[in-house]
């Protein structure tokens, strides 16, 4: 029987990466002085599963490497070794190496042998330090090379096969070790055929390994998985050369050694980096879904009865309406349940931060405490995957630029240890992630100087505080004096903003000098559905995200002010908001160009407000977002399209991009006025 092991690879990788994450967080907890036996056990178990899995799938390099880690962890578990910072650091390093190895295997690329060797040496170094007297240590064993051969008595327990072990596999493994292998099977305890339980193992084996540099440990390694389910005696052969007294049962096997099928598989199929990703879903969510579908089927059959009814009359209409209402609510619930399947807790994105902060704080010689709250807040898997990098960037920034060096902090009357707070929570239909530090805050004058120097703003421009802080998100902006390898290359914050915008979210910063800064990211719960406000302009229908709408109002002519002839602003409660005539920007023929015949929709994105002039408000509904990119291209000012109830397509406006478009339009207008003036 052959099973295609490759089908399990994806699961193995997924589980292994999960295991690595568990090990990492466990190790970081250890480091914080919590030497909890249960914790060490958890780490050990993860390492053990990775070792087992990689052994099964033939990733020997990984298995060997993990074995060394396991030895060290085992010592820690048994209290033979003190948990020291250096040991933990080494193990953390091992986790990294292991992750790289697994990634390399997954992508089918070469494993970085140097880093593996370095780490193995570091491990062996630690293991060798105090343990040289222990015969079981790898250090020792690898130096003990068997002179001539070994005699192995392998007597498995009856139910060894029930635990998924295969004795043939073990023998085959032994066969690959030595030059010559002689196997004598002892089947005395084999019962008569009628009494045989095919799932039990009745034989035992006497195996002689002759020649080849085989150490006792190599042999023990083969039996590592079964050593508590068998009787195992390993003795050096007295005189291997002359030893011939064994029936050569193994000959056939040896002459045509079963080729390692996995090795062949790997040779034939060049590993492809599979793009398909999977998702793990809580069973309760699936049950819920099945219930919903059940309800839906009942409603459907109820409704279809009406269609079959010959004499359709008034009384039916009421019931039909009821049925439709039910159908609607079921559809909505079903939709929500399906959405929930894609929802994952944000802890998946957060879990890498303890490690990051640990590494970076030692690199920058800063003392930092990381506080995380709201890790169970759920958001869409796609959003979750894409928010990771921007978050890393922001946390690094806070750590590098925000938090001051310990001595500076003490001088400013703060505690030596800085804090970075990561929190996530729901607000309205959005998820909000905050990265808050109690560092020095953004340096306004430095930002202004830099912006002027880079030509982002003109010399005499006057900006509000928020506008100044917003400059850091502009392309080509960095205030770091020294470009470090984590931040300061000026490609950071604009990329952060762009990535977040791509997810339909926004990022803002608030800062108080001397007290710290808060970066606030707002993201839609899902990328698939949006609460939309339908607006009409001429013949067209556009959709504005309800979330960015502040209010809609009828125009009072006395509140309109013209600025410099062509820009218009609307005075709303002591605030001046630019009026954006959407028909101008999108080149459409509106019903009316007179402001007080239409409506203004005041919207906000990234701290900027505009009032969009539209003909009509048409209603609100949830819309399914369809990408324009699938068959076409990204269009500036639009985040996508949707299909309305009547089957027509309506375009969804991206407020932040619309503001950009408007500003560009204005800039062009200004240029043309200036140009015209000169010509005249």
């Amino acid at each position, binding site marked *: 029987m052959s099973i295609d092991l490759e089908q399990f690879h994806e699961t193995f990788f997924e589980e292994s990466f999960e295991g690595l994450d568990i090990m990492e967080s466990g190790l970081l907890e250890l480091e914080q002085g919590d030497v909890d036996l249960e914790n060490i056990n958890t780490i050990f178990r993860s390492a053990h599963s990775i070792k087992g899995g990689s052994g099964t799938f033939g990733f020997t390099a990984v298995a060997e490497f993990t074995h060394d880690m396991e030895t060290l962890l085992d010592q820690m578990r048994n209290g033979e070794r003190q948990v020291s910072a250096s040991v933990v650091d080494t193990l953390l390093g091992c986790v990294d190496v292991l992750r790289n190895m697994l990634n390399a295997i997954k992508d089918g690329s070469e494993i970085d042998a140097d880093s593996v060797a370095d780490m193995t040496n570091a491990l062996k170094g630690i293991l060798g330090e105090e343990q040289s007297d222990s015969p079981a240590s790898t250090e020792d064993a690898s130096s003990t090379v068997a002179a001539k051969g070994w005699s192995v008595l392998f007597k498995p327990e009856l139910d060894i096969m029930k635990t998924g072990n295969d004795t043939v596999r073990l023998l085959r493994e032994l066969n690959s070790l030595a030059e010559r292998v002689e196997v004598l099977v002892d089947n005395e305890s084999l019962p008569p055929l009628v009494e045989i339980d095919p799932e039990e193992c009745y034989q035992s084996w006497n195996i002689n390994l002759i020649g080849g540099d085989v150490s006792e440990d190599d042999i023990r390694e083969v039996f590592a998985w079964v050593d508590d389910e068998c009787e195992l005696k390993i003795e050096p052969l007295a005189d291997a050369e002359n030893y011939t007294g064994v029936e050569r049962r193994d000959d056939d096997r040896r002459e045509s050694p079963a080729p390692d099928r996995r090795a062949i598989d790997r040779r034939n199929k060049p590993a492809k980096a599979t793009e398909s990703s999977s998702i793990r879903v809580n069973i309760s969510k699936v049950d819920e879904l099945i219930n919903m579908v059940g309800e839906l089927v009942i409603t459907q059959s109820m409704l279809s009865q009406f269609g079959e009814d010959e004499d359709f009359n008034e009384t039916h209409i009421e019931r039909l309406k009821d049925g439709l209402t039910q159908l609607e609510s079921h559809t909505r619930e079903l939709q929500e349940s399906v959405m929930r399947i894609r929802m994952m807790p944000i802890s998946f994105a957060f879990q890498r931060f303890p490690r990051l902060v640990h590494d970076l704080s030692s690199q920058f010689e800063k003392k930092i405490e990381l506080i995380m709250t709201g890790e169970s807040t759920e958001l869409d898997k796609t959003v979750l995957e894409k928010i990771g990098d921007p978050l890393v960037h922001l946390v690094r920034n806070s750590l590098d630029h925000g938090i001051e060096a310990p001595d500076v902090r003490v001088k400013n009357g703060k505690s030596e240890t800085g804090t970075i707070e990561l929190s996530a929570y729901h607000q309205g239909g959005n998820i909000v992630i905050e990265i808050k530090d109690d560092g020095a805050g953004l340096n306004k004058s430095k930002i202004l100087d830099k912006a002027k120097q880079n030509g982002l703003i003109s010399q005499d421009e006057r900006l509000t505080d928020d506008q100044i802080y917003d400059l850091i998100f502009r392309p080509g902006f960095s205030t770091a004096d020294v470009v470090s390898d984590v931040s300061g290359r000026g490609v950071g914050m604009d990329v952060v903003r762009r990535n977040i915008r791509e997810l339909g979210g926004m990022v803002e910063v608030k800062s108080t000098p001397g007290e710290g800064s808060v970066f606030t990211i707002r993201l839609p719960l899902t990328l698939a559905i949006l609460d939309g406000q339908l607006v009409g302009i001429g013949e*067209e229908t556009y959709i504005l995200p309800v979330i960015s709408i502040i209010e809609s109002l009828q125009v009072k002519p006395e509140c309109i002010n013209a600025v410099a002839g062509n820009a218009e602003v609307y005075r709303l409660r002591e605030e001046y908001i630019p009026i954006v005539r959407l028909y101008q*920007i*999108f*080149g*459409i023929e509106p019903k009316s160009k007179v402001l007080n015949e239409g409506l203004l929709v005041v919207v906000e994105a990234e701290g900027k407000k505009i009032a969009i002039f539209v003909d009509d408000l048409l209603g609100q509904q949830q819309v399914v977002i*369809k*990408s*324009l990119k*699938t*068959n*076409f*291209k*990204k*269009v*500036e*000012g*639009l985040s996508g*399209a949707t*299909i309305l109830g009547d*089957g*027509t*397509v*309506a*375009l969804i406006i991206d407020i932040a991009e619309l503001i950009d478009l408007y500003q560009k339009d204005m800039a062009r207008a200004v240029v043309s006025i200036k140009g015209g003036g000169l010509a005249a």
Partner: protein
Amino acid sequence: MSVTAEDISQQDADKEFKELLTFFLAGEEYGVDILRVQEIKGWDSVTNIPNTPEYIRGVINIRGSIVPIIDMRLRFNLEKREYDATTVVIVLNVMSNGHADRTMGVVVDAVSDVYNIPINDVKPSPDFGTAVDTEFVTGLATIDEKMIIVLNIDHMLNAAELAVIDKIES
């Protein structure tokens, strides 16, 4: 007399055939590989996309996906014509890098016919004589004394269309 499978394979060995769907555009007949045609539908209203070239008429909904519609007359700088009863939208699968990745619709005056022609009969086009930019043309084929311009839709609907749009974006 029936044609046996053997006959057909014999035929295949001699000549490779290609089926073309042809359509009219300003009096000329154009052909596209029929395997790329997803469907043919009558002209219906579209949703305009702002800030795109005029020949991109807009987008429509084809069974839940948003498909852009391109007017071939405008694309080839031909004279505008009111859409009428024969005006159709041919929905095509456009390939790039060897796999189908976009669906697009093109508006043409009318569909004409389906021809089965040997690939070898498609001759490279001379550098003049059609309103269509020769870079979009795979070649010319002659059927019953008629000339058919065989279009390279991948080139036409990928490189050119999108390049123009890119320019506008930047």
